[in-house]
């Protein structure tokens, strides 16, 4: 992998993990909400 590709890969990896972490930590609330409907 070339240097600049590596840089882009690193940034994408961060975005993916933050997506996972936000989903993982805040999904319980969403589940509670959908039950009422």
């Amino acid at each position: 992998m070339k240097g600049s590709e590596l840089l882009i890969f690193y940034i994408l990896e961060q975005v993916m993990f933050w997506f996972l972490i936000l989903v993982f930590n805040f999904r319980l609330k969403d589940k509670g909400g959908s039950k009422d409907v």
Partner: protein
Amino acid sequence: MFSLSVYIAVLSIIGFWKVKVIRGFNAYFLSEKRLGLLETSLTLASSWVDSAIILGFAGYCYAFGYDAIWIAIPTSIGVYTFSIFFAGKINLMRNGFTVGEVIGRTYSRRISVVSSIFVLFYSVALIATNLMASGYVMEAIFGVPFIYGALIVLLLTVFYTLLGGFKKVVETDILQFFLIMVGMLLVLAFVLRNIGGLTRLHDVALSYSPAFSRLDILSFFIVFTLPLWANPSFYQVCSAADSPKTARLGVAFVGLVDFLLTFVALAIGLAGAALFGTSLPQDMVFPKVMDAVLPSNLKGILGIAIISALMSTSDSYLLIGGGILAHDILYPLGFHYFDEVKLAKLGVLLTAVLSLFSMFWFDNIIDTAIFAFSLFASSSLIPLLVSLNSRGREAKDELSVLISMAGGGTTVILWKVLNLGDTSISVLYGLMVSGTLWLLFSVMLKLLLAKRTF
């Protein structure tokens, strides 16, 4: 001489500011108050920002250009997976505040003592990296010879760690975190202004040729991911957090801080290459660049901010080292001549002496960190993962675990002592040895037990 004494005075003030009388072992090692999200995140981040991130990684970027990201990727995977899989679990465990405690939930005392000895080595090596870094910064910015600089910082840190406790460390950590972040961003701004912006740095980066083989990259993914699952400061702070969610988000915040600092280190490393060519020793790059780009009135202040960040990591690990020696090694082994707090203080002193000696044994900061991580991964990863995933029931394959830990740890130590090759790949062999021994002996023990039953 005058400037040296001024700096010692300033450092002493930073030290005294942390002083707190210790009342009991738990108060010394854990704050009685539960930490909220802000405190958890900032304490974790402040302990995270250490010599390896500030000086070591900048030096690595200087030596390898964009290829240094091969270290940043596994590091962030380690931090984020810890946040997702382990931070919440550790928070829910009662007394999960050291790796030894967690392993002791599943295995006998003997195994937790052996793993604690390896965690102690890990802490000692990490303190050594911070001492090296302090020495380099003292030399480049204040003109104090390397060894005196490191000694002054060690003595001050030991002094207030003996008097202070975890709670005070948390309070000062928050301030230190802001100091160091502002400091790093200032250095970044001056680097960009003096060197000629991002495009110039990018051009410098493109002049590097690929540095690592596939084997190197594979071992980076082991060395910089797995040992983070055993990071002592993560365990300590996650168990002090007020909820599993706080612990998880706090660790994730560390990932974000590390991401930002990676870019600062990259800019500084590349600026080093633009300014000084390729002749500098890796660990001198950050102090030299700082010395070259900052105006002289800022240099002293930023030097102090960086040394205080290094001290803040050293004090956490001195505390952890001393605590482990007392709580997880000497006390369980029946060494009851002193009470635990006195023993922990003795442990702090011993940890400090060991760190001072180990400082001369390594080539540079990243090398030392890689050794510490490898040693830990090769010895304790198997029992730790089993313990984190078990529901507290007694494991039966004690002997095989003990042999695999000793085998893996010894492999990494022998690799370094006998100088068999790059430190970075020793973890591959260490894990291979410990994994093979574990499987071999578990199967053998199972066969033996089966024979006895029938």
